[in-house]
Each structure stands twice: as structure tokens, then as C-alpha cells.
């Protein structure tokens, strides 16, 4: 008995001591309630130095939390219980959050830097007038390939994926819209196509791709491609630029038939407490110099025209990540197809995943 009491006594004392130490560490960092700004972002999606700079400039303290999927983030915001002041969802999620009343309108008069954004990225279908969202990064979906493993082979079209000599060489991201999208694109249909005959045709065509597919994977696709586990991958452009940073033998291309154009935008969730601070943060991130540094750190494409001018030419002139107008005209933003069509897409994708070689 004595031993038990001693053990539990010790445990409680240690725990309380550690708690005290944590709160000391917290307060030594200046987290003290009212002057905080909570940011909810994708993992490693901002240059940490910029957060420190923002804290210094405004006197606000930033609590930085991360999520790994739009769905998880939406659930947390929908349930309430936490106070996120800023979040950075993708365009289809913004559409949904708007419909469900999870967002607060943004006061454009408090964001003088808004003018720096390239007009091409404003007034998009998922949020006309940018009432609720401000562009943060954008990108495409394309093919990344290992020039050395493939002995100088190049890609220009989605249809190149079907080539016989790529047996068991391709990795795909596990996304229904992405995979069905390039299936449709390879047949020269829109990736927002809802015509049943076209969808079935795309699924049949994807079925014939299975001998070439090595695996359909999640975020580990970056590690696998950089580690040369496979020669070809279908990935988002930001991931591509990151993988290429790790392994120089890789190259990225946006196929000529067209592809997806996606956006991650800053929004103010309805749970926000520090709305003033949230506006300050958005304005800070739109500053040309800040956005340029962030772009260099993260590797995705910036929608900030002034920031693009500040970036070194090897980034801003890179047509793989900043495609020319001709290419851009072929890129499509995902439309919100509605719940029913979306689950149909998911079903077709599932059938494709179960397709036997």
C-alpha cells in the first residue's frame, strides 16, 4: 500500500511540476490569452521565420496548428470548440465551407496589399468577388518522371502514361478527382465532365492503365519518387518541386491536353476570435517581399504578381510551375459537382482501384 501511495504521489507531483514548467515556457514565449492569433494550416506550409517576423511587427503571438486534409480541418471548424483565426483550405473546400456558413466575410478595405495579386487569380468560380477567401498558393497536377531511370524519355501528353515500356513504373496519388480527372483529360474531355458515357469511357481507359501502375499512394509518394522506387508519378506541382529539390534526376511536365488548376486560399473561419489580427496576417502575407520569401521556402506557385517580380528568374520563368498563357488556358479549376456526382466519381475511382491487372 505504501508503495502504491508513494508511486501515485510521485506521479502527480512530477506531472504538476512539468505542467508548471510548461506554463512557464509558454509565458516566457509570451502566450498570454488576448493577444494571440491561431493559424490552422497544412503541415510545413509557411516559412517559420515569417511567423516570427509577423509577431515582432504586430506584437501578436501566433499559435500555429496544422492539419493534413481539408476534410479533417472542416470537421474541426464545424464542431467549434477551438478558435482558429485563419485557415488555408483548397478551393473545393472553400465552396463547401461557404455553403455551410463556416466562413466570415473578409473586409477588403483592411487589406491594402490585395492589389498585388494577379487578377487572373481573383474572382474565381468558387468564390466570386473574393468575399471569403484570398489566394495563398496555386498549382497544377502533372507528371513527374525520372530522366535517368527512363534513359532520356520525355513526356508531353497524358497518353504517354499508357506506353507499353512503363510496365509497373507509375505511382498515382490517391485522389478520385485527380485520377478520374486525368482519365477524362486524356480523352480530351473536361475534368469536370458529368456525362455518364464520358465517365464510363474514362474508367475503361484507366482500367487499361493498370499494368503500368505500381501503386496508388498518399503523401509518401514524395519519398518514394525521391528514393527512385518508381520512375513516373502523377502528382501536384508543389510536391513535384519539392521532390525535384531532393533528387535532380526528376523532371515535371503539365500534359498538353490540360490539367487541374488548384488553389489554397486564406479564409477566416466562423470560430475566429481575433478578426482584426486575421486581417493583419492576410495583409502581411500578401506583402511582395514576404510572399516571395514564402514562395522560395514552400516551393508552390505564388499568385502574387509583385512577389513574382522579386523572385529569381529560374523560378519565375520556369514554365513547369508558371505555365505560359497558352497552357494556362487549358487548365481547369475543379467545380463543386455536388454530393451525388462526387460520390459517383469516388465509386468509379474505387472500381478502378479494384481493377485486376
Amino acid at each position, binding site marked *: 500500500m505504501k508503495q502504491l501511495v508513494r508511486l*501515485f504521489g510521485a506521479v502527480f507531483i512530477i506531472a504538476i511540476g512539468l505542467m508548471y514548467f510548461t506554463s512557464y*515556457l509558454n509565458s516566457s514565449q509570451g502566450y498570454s490569452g488576448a493577444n494571440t492569433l491561431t493559424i490552422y494550416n497544412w*503541415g510545413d506550409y509557411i516559412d517559420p521565420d515569417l511567423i516570427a517576423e509577423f509577431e515582432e511587427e504586430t506584437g501578436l503571438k501566433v499559435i500555429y496548428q496544422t492539419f493534413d486534409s481539408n476534410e479533417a480541418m472542416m470537421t*474541426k471548424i464545424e464542431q467549434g*470548440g477551438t478558435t482558429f483565426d485563419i485557415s488555408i483550405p483548397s478551393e473545393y473546400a472553400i465552396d463547401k465551407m461557404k455553403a455551410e456558413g463556416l466562413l466570415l466575410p473578409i473586409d477588403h478595405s483592411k487589406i491594402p496589399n490585395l492589389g498585388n495579386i494577379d487578377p487572373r487569380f481573383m474572382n474565381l468560380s468558387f468564390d466570386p468577388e473574393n468575399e471569403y477567401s484570398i489566394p495563398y498558393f496555386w498549382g497544377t497536377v502533372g507528371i513527374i518522371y525520372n530522366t535517368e531511370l527512363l534513359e532520356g524519355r520525355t513526356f508531353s501528353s497524358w497518353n504517354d502514361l499508357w506506353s507499353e515500356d512503363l510496365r509497373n513504373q507509375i505511382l498515382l496519388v490517391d485522389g478520385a478527382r485527380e485520377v478520374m480527372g486525368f482519365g477524362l483529360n486524356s480523352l480530351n474531355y473536361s475534368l469536370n465532365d458529368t456525362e455518364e458515357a464520358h465517365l464510363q469511357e474514362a474508367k475503361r481507359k484507366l482500367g487499361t492503365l493498370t499494368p503500368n501502375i505500381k501503386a496508388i499512394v498518399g503523401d509518401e509518394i514524395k*519519398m518514394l519518387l525521391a528514393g527512385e522506387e518508381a520512375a513516373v508519378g502523377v502528382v501536384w506541382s508543389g510536391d513535384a518541386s519539392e521532390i525535384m529539390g531532393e533528387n535532380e534526376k526528376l523532371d515535371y511536365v503539365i500534359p498538353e491536353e490540360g490539367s487541374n488548376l488548384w488553389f489554397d486560399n486564406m479564409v477566416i473561419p466562423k470560430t475566429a476570435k481575433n478578426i482584426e489580427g486575421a486581417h493583419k496576417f492576410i495583409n502581411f502575407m500578401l506583402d511582395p517581399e514576404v510572399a516571395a520569401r514564402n514562395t522560395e521556402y514552400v516551393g508552390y506557385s505564388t499568385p502574387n504578381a509583385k512577389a513574382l517580380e522579386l523572385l529569381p528568374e529560374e523560378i519565375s520563368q520556369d514554365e513547369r510551375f508558371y505555365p505560359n498563357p497558352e497552357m494556362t488556358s487549358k487548365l481547369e479549376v475543379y467545380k463543386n459537382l455536388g454530393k451525388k456526382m462526387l460520390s459517383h466519381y469516388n465509386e468509379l475511382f474505387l472500381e478502378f482501384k479494384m481493377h485486376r491487372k
Partner: protein
Amino acid sequence: MRTNGKLAQLYLVIVFIILYAPILYLMYYSFNSAGTMHGFDGFTLEWYKEVFHDTRLLIIVLNTVVIALLSSAISTILGVVGALAIQRVRRNRPRNSLLAMNNVLIVSPDVIIGASFLIFFTMIGIKLGFTSVLLSHIAFSVPIVVLMVLPKLQEMSPTLIDAAKDLGASGWGVLTKVVLPFLRPGIFAGFFMALTYSLDDFAVTFFVTGNGYTTLSVEIYSRARQGISPSINALSTLIFLFTITLVVGYYFLTRRGSKKPDWGVVQP
């Protein structure tokens, strides 16, 4: 027979290699100056330095430890009381259904427990953060403790209690001087199981963290989205070494303790 013994040893060695190889691999790359998990460039301690300079990470580690200690201690107390209560139910039918209800909580998927906690907490207005994480960890640890303590309790002969009562022990005396000492191994086992469950729980914690409060498993998971930085390797190495020290320490403590019998009843 001899070759059989050798085969068994070989098998054991292979099993241990499989179990420890990933951890050693992870530790090896925590010293990699290249900053990735492929290709070893050179030896560096930079990532360890980064861990100690990252105050946020340090706070998260401390949070994780505090939650683990508090939740396992509280749930051990609750679990022992629960086990005693279940044992007191004399009739078989209700006792078995109580046990079954306890076991259902152990086998039900963490994701579902986590989601229901999230909905529950936000419904009754508890802010996500320290309290919600602590409460949910206590909740999923209690059934484990109950399961660890009950077999010991069933092992205990009722004559032991009768004897104590005959010698004039009060109800409290029987509990503290006879029952609890007898249950001690089960209580310790329950405590340590709860501790490890709490330390590495991701699924439940993921749902109930919020407001800047997070634990290590959740943090590592969200960092892994952009490829794991070697500073995570360094941190994992440190935690692994810390656990090893704890286990070795515990081993020596119990060995010293077992030499002298500390109470009169023969241990099974």
C-alpha cells in the same frame, strides 16, 4: 533437441532484428547531415540542437508526458475501484455483461471513440485543449486498467479476506492491507499499459486537440505531410533512449524488491 534449441534462438534473434531494425534505421538517420532519409552524407548533431532550440516542440513533448502521467494515474485509481465494484457483483449474468461492456470499449476503433468525444465535448461546451485531451485519455485507459486488475482479483482467495476479518481488520484495513497489496502487480501493469497507450495514442487525440494544445503523435503526423524532418528522428531517438532507461531502471527496482518478501501471503 539441441538443433531445435538453436533454431528457436535463431528465430528469436530474427524477431528482435525485425522489431528493432526500423528504430535503429531512424536513429542512424538522425545523425545525417543531408537532411533526408535517403543517402547518408555525414555525421552531424545539428538536428539534436534544433530539437533543444525548438521551444514549441519541447512544450509539446512536456504536454504529452503530463497527459500520459496524469491520465494513467487517474485512470488506474478509477480502474481499480471499477474492478472492485465489478467483482462485488455476485451474480454471473450482470457481472458478465459489465465485463463485456468494458471489453467493447477496448476493442472499439479509436477513430470512433475520438469522433464521439469531439462531438460530446463540443456539445456540452468543453473547450478543446488540455481538459478534453486529459478526459478522453482517462476514458480510454480505464477499461484497460480494469482488464489488468480483474484477473488478479479473481485469483485472490476469499479465505484471505475472511482470515483478515477474523483477525479483527476493519473494511478499510482489509482493502489497504490485504486486497490492494495483493493486486499490486495488476495495478502496476495497468498503470504502465495506460501510460504507453496514452503516450502513443493518435486517433483519439487527433480529434480532441485544439487551441494550440497538441501532443507529440498529432504533431509528428501533421509534420510528416511534408516529409519528416530529421529533427523528428532526433527527438524520437531521445524519447526511445529515455524509455529504455526507464525500463532498465524499473527492471532493477523490481529485482531488488523481489528479493525480500514484503508481506505474508505466498505469491502465485
